[in-house]
Structures are given as structure tokens and as C-alpha cells.
């Protein structure tokens, strides 16, 4: 691993790329480029793009498997770009790439770094890599304290939790936990409690309202009881659930009773994996934004002849932005063309009611009522206000689905996925096309479950100190023989009984004993309502 300054050619390219990015008005954090050889690159990826990591068998397994795949020719060791955003950002270049490729990677990285700075989820933070390096030291110290065996056991238990980390969920910590600490209050939180909302809506005298509103004795008693339960929970635990909590790992990291060593492992895991939630929620916008600026910067570099090989670049670019069917989600392709489309919409003044209501197709096609304002400003505003869900919901139209070939599937693949002939609306010798109408709906569905089960904490004091989890039913069953080991791992971290409700089954793991029992199904809405009323969400 060496800094880009050790290579004069790359250093010159870096300067040119940053110059053009700044000239285009990009707001970039400090970016530090490093050059790695292929094996270092492979290791870096398995360390989740941090230069160091605590010793763990899972990383070892992944690296050994990848090395074997690369050595046996099953996989390429060429990677496009890797960057850890934040301020400063750390970007890594593969030593085997050509100067043209390195320049395109640098330009691409600029797009990512800016997106991280501007986005609505406020991904960028100061000294992220440095903080993780500090956490690695803490985790390594924990290994010494805990001993290899216990450390490994706890680490493995934490690995089970990683998919249950959802810091940006609608039901994240800030929105689902009332705590006596200031920790979550500092986070940006748009949640406003119901009663606070109604207060805001009524600017009249509060005393008068009270006098006019007739409160029954029963209502007053219920209110007092709720208050009492709330105060009891706060004094016993220091927190209480105000809604189901989907950020299970975040919750355990903050509220499970853990030793110093265990805390170090949980902190490391949570910090390292927390950015994945941001990536998955903004991948199309993010990659599209990076491709959009990469292309602009690269064209400038070719113009001033700072790099050669425009044909090769065009080949690489078209390969990266190759259209894939909607379920494969090529974020580079979709994002890039979406941003180009949005730029055109703003430039021609098409983001307005008049355009939407215009019924004359010819007029719509020739619409050009731009007021000369810079469309990039509007695009930056979008980055700062929405995620992929809204990006697609607002701007992906049926016409674009056709234009981007999102409803076009290779015949062989169509056969593999079992596409029925009734679904096909058009075909040629190589492709079949399906109806574009439901495609958008299907793509939006991804953002509700991200192809994984939705698990929530719904009670933290179930049957005297138990952690009760709830699997929100979406018609699919959980893999049964993984429930027990996962609950066992959760039990190790929670240090108390753990329970899971999935459909009409209640699974529990306590004192090394796994049990399952049939229960009456409860809906998520019922549970939500009970929690908001400070009632027990589920009784067994």
C-alpha cells in the first residue's frame, strides 16, 4: 500500500481530476488516494474497505475462498473502484489498472464522496476510517481480555446480528426508543410524538382546551397508568419502547448489558456495517451520481489530453452501464440514465404541473420552457432530500422502463426464472419483453424489505426480562433450522431469554434450551397500537 504521490503519473492525474471536479462546482471532502496490489485489494474488500480489522475466521474464510477462485480463474482480481467515504475519504486504486482506468476511478470516487457529503441520510462523518482503526485496537485488546475462545464465540454471535442493523429504518432507534440519555436526541430526528403534534396544531389556550374537553375517569386512569408504566420502565432500564424497533443490532449495542470487551466487539461491528444501510437505500442515486460526474470529468481529461484511450473508456463505460432487467438492478446503468433524464427535465422546465397536465403529445415532446437556471442545483437538492425509493417513485415512468430495457429479459434467463408465456408481451430471437406497468411497483417493493425478513424488537421485558422479537409476515416462512442457532447467538448477547414470534409460532431460547409453541397470530398493526398505548404487545 502506497500513497498516490509515489507515482508521478497518477499524482498528476489525481491533480487534474480534482481540478476539474472543483471547476464543476463539486463540494468534495479531502480525498486521499492509495495504490494497492491485487491481493491487498482483495483483503481490503473483505475488511469492509478499512485498512485493518480484528482477527476473525470469517474474513479468513472469505479471503481464502476468493484467492482460490482468482487463482483457479473463476473470478477476476480486477476491481473497479473502492472508496471509504467520510472526511477525509480514503480511495484505493488497483495497481494493475491502466492510467486511463485509474483516472476514471478517481473521477468516479469524486462523485461518491460528494454524494456522501450531500445526501439526505447524512452519511459522511469526520474521521470514519480513523475511528474504525481505533475500534479495531479496542477489539484486539478485547481478544486479550476475553481469551480467544470466548472472543470468537461472541464475535460469531454478533455476526448473526449484522443483517438486523437498520439505522435508517422508519423504526430505527431514534423513532422507537425513549431513553433517558441524550444519545438519540442528538441524532437528526424528524419524528414528532402524536400529542406534541396536536399541541402544535392548536395555538389556543391550553388551559381552555382542558376545561372544554371532558375527560372521563377511566381515560384519566388509563393515562396515569401509562405514565406510571413509562416512569417505572425508565427508572428500571433507562429506556422504553415507543414503537417496534427494527434496528435490533443498534439496540443491543446500546442497551444490552455487556462487558467492556463485548462492547468493543459490538461497537466495531455496528460501526463497520452501519454504512451498508445507507448504501442499500441510495445505491441507484449514488452510483448514478458517480457515473454522471465521472463521465463529465473524463471528457474534460480527454479534451486536454491528460489521458489517452477514449475508445477503451467508451468500451468500459458501456460495459458498466449495460442494461439489466429490473430484478437485477444495475445501479450504474439505471442511476446514470435517470440522472441524465432528470437533468433534461429540469433544463427544459418539465418539472411543473403544466407539463404534467398537458395532453397534447406533440407539445410535450417539444416542451422547452427552462428559465435558464442550472439543473445541477435541482439535482443536488434531490440528493439532499430523497433516497432511491422516492427517486424511482417520482421519476421512473413506464416510458423510461421501456427505454432503459428494464422489462427486457434474456430468453434463457426467462426460462430459468420460470416466466410464463402469458407474461410476455413481445419477443424476438434473443429477448422477451414483459409488461412495464408492474415493474416500477416491483422495484419499489424492494425498499420495504430489501429481500430479507423484517424483524422487530417489540418487548424488552417479556416474561420478566426477555427480549421479544417479531417477524413481520410477508407470506414467506423463516428458515426453521436457523432460528435456533440465531436465537442462541442473540441470547448470548442479551444475556437473558430471547423469543421470536413468526406467524403462529413462538420460539424461545433460554438457559441453553430451545422451545417452540403454537400461538394465535398477531398482526404488526395490533402490536404497534399496543406499544403506543404502553400496553404489553403480546401475552403468552
Amino acid at each position, binding site marked *: 500500500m502506497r500513497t498516490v504521490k509515489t507515482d508521478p503519473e497518477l499524482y498528476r492525474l489525481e491533480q487534474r481530476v480534482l481540478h476539474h471536479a472543483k471547476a464543476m462546482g463539486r463540494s468534495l471532502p479531502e480525498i486521499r488516494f492509495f495504490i494497492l496490489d491485487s491481493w491487498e485489494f482483495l483483503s481490503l474488500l473483505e475488511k469492509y474497505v478499512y*485498512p485493518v480489522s480484528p482477527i476473525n475466521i*470469517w474474513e479468513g474464510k472469505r479471503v481464502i475462498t476468493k484467492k482460490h477462485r482468482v487463482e483457479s480463474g473463476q473470478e477476476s482480481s480486477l476491481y473497479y473502484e473502492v472508496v471509504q467515504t467520510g472526511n477525509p475519504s480514503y480511495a484505493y486504486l488497483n495497481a494493475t489498472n491502466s492510467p486511463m482506468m485509474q483516472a476514471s476511478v478517481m473521477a468516479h470516487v469524486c462523485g461518491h464522496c460528494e454524494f456522501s457529503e450531500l445526501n439526505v441520510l447524512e452519511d459522511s462523518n469526520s474521521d470514519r476510517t*480513523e475511528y474504525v482503526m481505533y475500534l479495531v485496537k479496542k477489539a484486539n485488546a478485547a481478544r486479550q481480555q476475553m481469551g480467544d475462545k470466548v472472543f470468537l464465540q461472541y464475535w460469531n454471535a454478533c455476526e448473526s446480528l449484522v443483517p438486523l442493523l437498520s439505522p435508517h429504518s422508519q423504526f430505527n432507534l431514534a423513532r422507537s426508543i425513549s431513553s433517558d440519555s441524550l444519545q438519540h436526541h442528538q441524532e437528526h430526528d424528524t419524528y414528532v410524538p402524536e400529542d406534541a403534534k396536536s399541541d402544535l396544531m392548536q395555538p389556543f389556550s391550553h388551559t381552555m382546551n382542558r376545561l372544554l374537553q371532558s375527560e372521563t375517569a377511566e381515560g384519566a386512569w388509563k393515562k396515569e397508568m401509562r405514565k406510571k408504566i413509562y416512569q417505572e420502565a425508565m427508572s428500571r432500564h433507562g429506556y422504553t419502547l415507543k414503537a417496534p424497533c427494527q434496528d435490533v443490532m443498534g439496540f443491543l449495542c446500546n442497551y444490552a448489558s455487556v462487558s467492556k470487551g463485548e462492547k468493543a466487539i459490538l461497537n466495531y461491528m455496528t460501526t463497520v456495517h452501519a454504512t451498508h444501510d445507507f448504501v442499500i437505500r441510495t445505491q441507484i442515486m449514488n452510483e448514478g451520481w458517480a457515473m454522471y460526474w465521472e463521465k463529465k470529468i473524463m471528457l474534460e481529461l480527454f479534451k486536454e489530453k491528460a489521458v489517452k484511450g477514449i475508445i477503451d473508456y467508451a468500451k468500459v463505460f458501456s460495459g458498466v452501464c449495460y442494461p439489466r432487467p429490473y430484478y437485477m438492478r444495475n445501479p450504474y446503468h439505471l442511476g446514470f440514465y435517470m440522472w441524465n433524464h432528470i437533468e433534461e427535465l429540469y433544463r427544459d422546465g418539465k418539472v411543473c404541473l403544466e407539463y404534467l397536465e398537458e395532453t397534447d403529445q406533440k407539445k410535450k415532446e417539444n416542451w422547452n420552457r427552462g428559465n435558464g437556471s442550472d439543473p445541477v442545483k435541482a439535482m443536488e437538492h434531490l440528493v439532499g432530500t430523497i433516497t432511491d425509493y422516492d427517486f424511482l417513485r417520482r421519476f421512473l415512468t413506464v416510458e423510461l422502463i421501456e427505454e432503459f430495457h428494464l422489462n427486457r429479459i434474456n430468453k434463457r434467463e426467462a426460462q430459468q426464472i420460470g416466466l410464463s408465456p402469458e407474461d410476455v408481451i413481445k419477443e424476438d430471437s434473443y429477448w422477451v419483453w414483459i409488461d412495464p406497468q408492474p415493474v416500477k411497483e416491483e422495484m419499489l417493493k424492494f425498499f420495504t424489505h430489501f429481500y430479507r425478513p423484517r424483524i422487530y424488537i417489540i418487548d424488552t421485558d417479556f416474561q420478566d426480562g426477555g427480549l421479544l422479537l417479531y417477524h413481520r409476515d410477508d407470506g414467506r416462512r423463516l428458515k426453521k433450522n436457523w432460528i435456533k442457532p440465531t436465537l442462541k*447467538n442473540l441470547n448470548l448477547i442479551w444475556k437473558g431469554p430471547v423469543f421470536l414470534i413468526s406467524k403462529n409460532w413462538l420460539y424461545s431460547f433460554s438457559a441453553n434450551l430451545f422451545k417452540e409453541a403454537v400461538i394465535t397470530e398477531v398482526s404488526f398493526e395490533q402490536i404497534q397500537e399496543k406499544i403506543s398505548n404502553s400496553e404489553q404487545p403480546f401475552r403468552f
Partner: protein
Amino acid sequence: MFGEEKISSNESEGAFTEFVEEQLDELIENVVNEGDLTSIGDRGSDIIVEMDDIEVPTFVYENEGGSGQGSGKGPGKEGGGKMRFSLPFNKLMELISSVLDLPNLTKEGKGKIKEVSYEFKTFGQVGVILDKKRTFKRALRTNLGMGTYNPQTGQYDVQIRRRDKRYKLPERVEKPKFKAVVFYMGDISYSTYGERLELEKRLVNFTQNWLDYNYGPGNVEHRFFVHDMDAYEVQANDFYNVSNMGGTQAAAVFELVFQVAFNEYDTTGTNFYAFYFGDGELFDDDARRILETLEESMRPLFNRVGIVEVQPGRLSLLNRQVATRFSRDPVVRLSEINDKRETIDVIKTLFGVQ
């Protein structure tokens, strides 16, 4: 912030390798406890070990994920992927010997025959094979000192002078080379088929592997002898295939083996091993002749003589007779096998510390 250090996962790879080795130990222990040595495979060849893949168990939908052994404790072996490892023959035998607690065989003839090889461990200023890495390092240091290499001022010339050159020098390494001959003796008059044959095959296979491992491949000669009333040598493949109904004289094969060992080999530099497999039934003066051969001829010459009664019957007297003189002998070892689970005990008796 970062120095020039390399990003690597060596330690994590090591941790995973250790984990796999622990699993292998368990696997070997199971193999050994079950007495199923068939997985050792062909002589001297690496074996492919398959074990359940490890994956982190988490809440996933049905038909997703693997076997769920994430914590190393999870259940669910069905439907999961497999990890395949190639285990070198020597490593396998090493593991087996450590599990069985078998001592290395005592070898004779040490120092008489040498295996000579050359290793390039030292370096000098003259030689034939240039060590490019060392040479470049020295040259870089010299150039930095002289100021001819200075990246800050754009000077990147690295000139290699004669005194910077380092050559790899060969070093003569002598390793003692031992030679061994193993005689396998089988009784073809008893019913060697079915389970009996399997038991015998298993023991012979292990013995071949164990001696190959101890002496190194190519240094062990395996010879096969059978007997009914007479004794004669057969090819390895025929050892299990020939059979004859009728009378039997086991003493004949012991005598023949001794004659071959004495007349065909340099007795001062060769390690001799002999293993007899049969039902142990004796006729006439068999026992007396065998005891004589063992005591007077074979015991002084051979490193080890093993006599194994395979599924002996009421009339099996061979071990009982031999035990009258060799009950706890370091060279002559007596054992019997009735079931495959006894394979390990037999191996321990034949090769363990007495």
C-alpha cells in the same frame, strides 16, 4: 496517516486455517474412533476431506442460506454447502499418529545411506544465481545514500554496482535415508471373504501407509506371501484373491519370509517388518516350528513381527502358543480382531509402545 504497511488478512487466514485444523482433528478422531480407515485412500496420495460449510446463522427465508453452522455449534446439516480441502498424505498420517499416540518407528542403518540435497539458504558476493530482491534492496540503499535516487527531486535512477550484487549459494544438506522391507503373510486356507477380508484389507492398508509415512515414499518395499500347506510369494493384488481349501502349515510362511530377508537383503542396513494374518488354527507341530523361527531367526533380525488372528475360532491357538514366550515383547506383537471397531486397538498393539 498510513505508512507503507501492507494490507493483508494473513492473521485472519491463519485463524481460519486453525479452525479448519481443529475440525480436521475432530474428523480424524471420529474416523479413528469408528475404525473406518478407508478414507485414507490410496497409498501416498492426498485425500480430499469434505466438511459442512460454515455460515453465520441469521433469520433468513426458507431455501436461503447454507447449513447454519455459524457459531460452530449450529445444527442443520441438510442442504448446506460443503467445504473441500485437499489434505496431504503426510499431514493425514501425522494427525492419525498424534491421535493414536503412535511413536515413530525406530530405524536402523542410520548414517549409512544419505539423501543429499542442496538448499539455497545463504548468500554471497559471487555466485551464479542472482538474488534480485536482495540485490535491488542493497542497490536502493546505496543509491539513496549517494543521492542518485531521490523521488522528491524527481530522480528515480537506481544503478546496480558489483558490490551490491548478492548471489544465492547452495548449501549441501544430508539427510539419512533408511530402507525397509515389509512382509505380509496371509493364510489362504481359511475363509477370507466378506467381513474377514475387509478387516484384513483395512489393517494391511494402514500398515502400508504407516510404514511409507515413516520411511518416506519409495524407501519401503512391500512383499506379499501366502500359505496353505506350502508358502509362496504373490503379487499385491493376488494377496486377497487366492484361496485354497484344505490343510494348513503357517510355519512354512514364517520360514520362507526369514529366508528371503536373510538371503536377498543387506541385513545390516535394512529394516525388516513382518505381519501375519490368519485364523490362528494350528496343525501338527506348527506352533513349535513358528516359535523356533521367531526366537532364533526373526526376532534378532526384524524390527517388528506382528501376528493378528482375524475373527479367531475355538481352535485358534496360534497367539496363545506364541504368547507363552512373547507375551510382552517389544518386537513380537500379538493381537486379534473380531470387529472393525477393534482396528485401532490392533494398530495400537502392533505399532504402539509396549
